[in-house]
């Protein structure tokens, strides 16, 4: 059963192999918008590129988690979740992980290349990668939770982001602080530990929280 779920959940993304490139294209599109808008000043751009990478990752998570359960809700699959005698928490966990894997992970792989392109020093780029690696699953989880909260509501593409962005702040603060630290030569381990603690806290609880939230949203 469990492998069937894993298989199907992955199939949704693998169906169209292009989908794996989409987050990447999106990433580069957003990155290339910045110099267009901020002006092509090289020094300036070099300074803010780690921030831009992070902003782009945030956007990706907001966009992909927005209306995450909408289709399942319209098609009645949420009712399947709630009337299943299998561990739905596992399904929800899988959904979080695969959403992350197919939208954030492709970006992570290309961070070293991007760092090369923008001549970010190796150690800094590794810290950026690390913060993204630990941070984005948390952000995705928060986003998915937000979309479960707003499930039955009238269409409002901005409501969920507004609800979830405040919850992004801790992750952002510690990530930015780690990146700042490494680029000024200070120790950055502490921040990474805190981020990791957040991840370890959020990820195991999230499926239960999600199931509960979905139950609340649908009991209408």
């Amino acid at each position, binding site marked *: *059963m469990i492998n*069937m779920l894993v298989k*199907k959940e992955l199939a949704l993304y693998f169906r169209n192999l292009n989908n794996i490139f989409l987050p990447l294209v999106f990433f580069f599109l957003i990155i290339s918008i910045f110099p267009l808008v901020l002006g092509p000043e090289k020094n300036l751009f070099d300074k803010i590129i780690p921030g831009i990478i992070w902003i782009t990752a945030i956007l990706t998570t907001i966009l992909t988690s927005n209306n995450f359960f909408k289709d399942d809700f319209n*098609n*009645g699959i949420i009712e399947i979740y*709630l009337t299943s*005698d299998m561990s*739905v928490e596992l399904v929800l966990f899988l959904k979080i992980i695969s959403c992350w894997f197919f939208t954030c992970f492709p970006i992570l792989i290309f961070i070293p290349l991007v760092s090369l392109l923008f001549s970010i020093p190796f150690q800094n780029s590794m810290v950026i990668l690390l913060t993204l690696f630990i941070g984005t699953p948390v952000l995705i989880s928060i986003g998915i939770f937000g979309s479960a909260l707003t499930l039955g509501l009238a269409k409002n593409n901005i409501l969920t982001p507004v609800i979830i962005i405040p919850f992004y702040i801790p992750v952002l603060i510690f990530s930015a602080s780690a990146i700042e630290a490494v680029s000024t030569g200070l120790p950055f381990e502490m921040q990474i530990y805190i981020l990791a603690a957040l991840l370890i806290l959020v990820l195991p609880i999230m499926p239960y929280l999600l199931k509960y939230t979905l*139950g609340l949203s649908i*009991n209408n």
Partner: protein
Amino acid sequence: MKSTEISVNSATCYKNNNLIFSDVSISYNDGDIGIIMGPNGCGKTTLIRSICGIQALDEGQILLDKIDIKNHNNNYMDKIIYIGHKNSLNNDFSVYENLEYLSAFDSSSKINKINEAMKYFDIYKYRNYMVSEISEGNKKKVSLARLLISQKKVWILDEPLSYLDDTAVNIFTNLVLNHQKKGGITIASTHYDFSKNINNVKYLNMDPGR
């Protein structure tokens, strides 16, 4: 096989401060076919959803084998399969994949019965079609095909006949009859009484709440 009893015990439900139904009691035992009838808006769907634990009751309980489903630790559904109004099909999957996926949510299901189930409902030819590429009636058949894959004893169905053509209605009726013979329980809401010449049918006529 252990006998099963599912009973609704003076159930009352409000939505948004409106009474939907009150003091509904009925109980179903092995071999029963329960038909829930009543005019549009009388609360059939609401009752069915509360039997499945999706909808909370304001008063009364749903009892499975004399135990309130709330005290069943979430595994009371291991005897029950629920098929609602909506087809629960994922448009991004083919018919076959959908049945695979839905089976994974059902501990009793037998994956190797999927093909058989599709043939039973005459939708085998659509097995590789995307759900968005088949007709409304065929979608309903796909969702009903779950009944043949699952091995559960209690079927709870909300208007299973909608969009089905006459052949499919007969197929479905036979399926319910077979289930009855094996001692299964079927609870279905419907406007079209498919159970005319069936024994052991328990009707529940719901009056409009207001």
